[in-house]
């Protein structure tokens, strides 16, 4: 088996930002650990829990990049901890010391765990569902959508609400609903099954909407699903989401 870096075990230093809700104390704690090259950062957290410090709180669910629960900032980059392999991290950041922080998109509950409920409140504002469904064209049958039409927005539907984009965006989270929330809104503007376009447009083109985007494209840069978020927001500014295709 090939050993790309010639090294099987890394000596890592993780500097983890911690917060204790009982005392409201924040501090940075340093953990040193040995890890194999293909362990993921979630595995490292688990290792810390098992071998060094059971109190370190972090979050994950699917652990294979499908749910967006494990997002953290590693050396400043927002990413999914379950997708980051030790070897890749060492290579990318060119160091074995990693600064790990929770995403700054909502209050921290403890250590790396943020209050996603709060973060989701901004998404809920774009009403991520069909408000007024179009009646079926022929009863008992699906509403036809051509693959071409679907192609226009299908990439936006891949968003898993990991909030990486929101945490990297140049706009603050106090005012911008968020790049991913823009996607959710844009999807339903482009979806022929949604009849309630007016309200959607009002939300999208509001002060909390597309005008908060300055095409800094950090969203596209960090998106773990490789969605070109910036493209969709630009499409909204261009008028491309309401134009009949």
């Amino acid at each position, binding site marked *: 088996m090939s050993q790309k870096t010639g090294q099987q075990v890394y000596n890592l230093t993780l500097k983890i930002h911690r917060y204790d809700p009982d005392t409201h104390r924040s501090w940075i704690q340093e953990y040193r650990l040995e890890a194999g090259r293909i362990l993921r950062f979630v595995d490292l957290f688990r290792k810390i829990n098992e071998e060094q410090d059971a109190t370190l709180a972090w979050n994950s669910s699917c652990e294979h990049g499908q749910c967006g629960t494990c997002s953290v900032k590693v050396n400043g980059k927002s990413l999914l901890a379950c997708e980051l392999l030790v070897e*890749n991290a060492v290579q990318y950041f060119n160091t074995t010391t990693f600064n790990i922080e929770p995403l700054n998109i909502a209050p921290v509950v403890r250590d790396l765990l943020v209050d996603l409920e709060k973060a989701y409140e901004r998404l809920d504002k774009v009403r991520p569902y069909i408000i007024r469904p179009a009646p079926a064209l022929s009863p008992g049958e699906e509403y036809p959508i051509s693959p071409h039409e679907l192609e226009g927005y299908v990439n936006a539907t891949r968003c898993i609400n990991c909030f990486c984009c929101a945490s990297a965006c140049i706009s603050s989270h106090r*005012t*911008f609903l968020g790049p991913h929330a823009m996607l959710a809104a844009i999807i339903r503007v482009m979806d022929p099954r949604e009849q309630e376009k007016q309200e959607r447009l009002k939300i999208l083109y509001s002060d909390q909407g597309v005008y908060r985007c300055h*095409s*800094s494209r950090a969203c596209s*840069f960090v998106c773990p699903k490789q969605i070109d978020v910036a*493209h969709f927001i*630009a499409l909204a500014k261009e*008028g491309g989401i309401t134009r009949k295709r």
Partner: protein
Amino acid sequence: MNKASWNPIKLPVERYILPVLEHLPPVVSFYAKTRGWPFIIAWAHRITGLLLALYFFVHIYTLSFLATPVAYDAKMKLFGFFLFSFLEWLLAVPVIFHALNGGRLILFEVFGRRNDESLIRWMLGLSTTYILLLGLMMIRQDQSASLIVYWLPILVFSISLVYLVSLKIWRTENSMAWKLHRMIGVYLLIMIPAHMLFMHLEPAIAHEANTVINRMQHVSAKLLDLTLVLGVSYHAGYGLVSICKDYLPPGSLQNVLTFLIALTIAVLGWVGIKLTIIL
């Protein structure tokens, strides 16, 4: 990282420039790694926008001395010094960067130029050319230009660009305020760099009160300057308010700041307009 994010190195020269860029200021390399170059450029756009707004403020203040030509000339003596010339030349950096990058943003946002790495290269390349060209002008200081011959084609070109952009965005769902900001943006895209270049064709053009005042007797010159003052006021005002809205949640603080910005801009604009008319 598995993500094939934009690999910025394409041209051979960049192979040497980029590592320097990435290693000189740690902030830059940090953001390049964590958010990508367009993010850094967005910040640069914001900072240059703010610088220009500041310059605009100072500029109008200085120009207001034109009402008393002696005072103006005294002030302008300063620019004889090498340092000030140099600063004037440096001003070209934010001006041309903001202008061309603004143009790039418009191409990205409304003309569908989404893979704009090459645009970024063009923008940076053209910026460098402009800055060098301006420097050359400032050193040679011997061009003469007729108001009409210089400005007429430029104006035609600018207005055509505005028309082109308006065609593209007029029927979108964006607010009128946003549309105006972008349309004025393209107007300024040509006009401001041209204005700056014009002012350096020869030293007297800008630095001698009488030359300026003489020129300003033409209605066309007045009109031209009026469009500039109005355009820059609106564009800068919108930009500043937009920055506020990025950081302040809707509410009284945001309203107060918006009001203050609007007031400042209005006063500035008014001073500028009055100046143009009375000269």
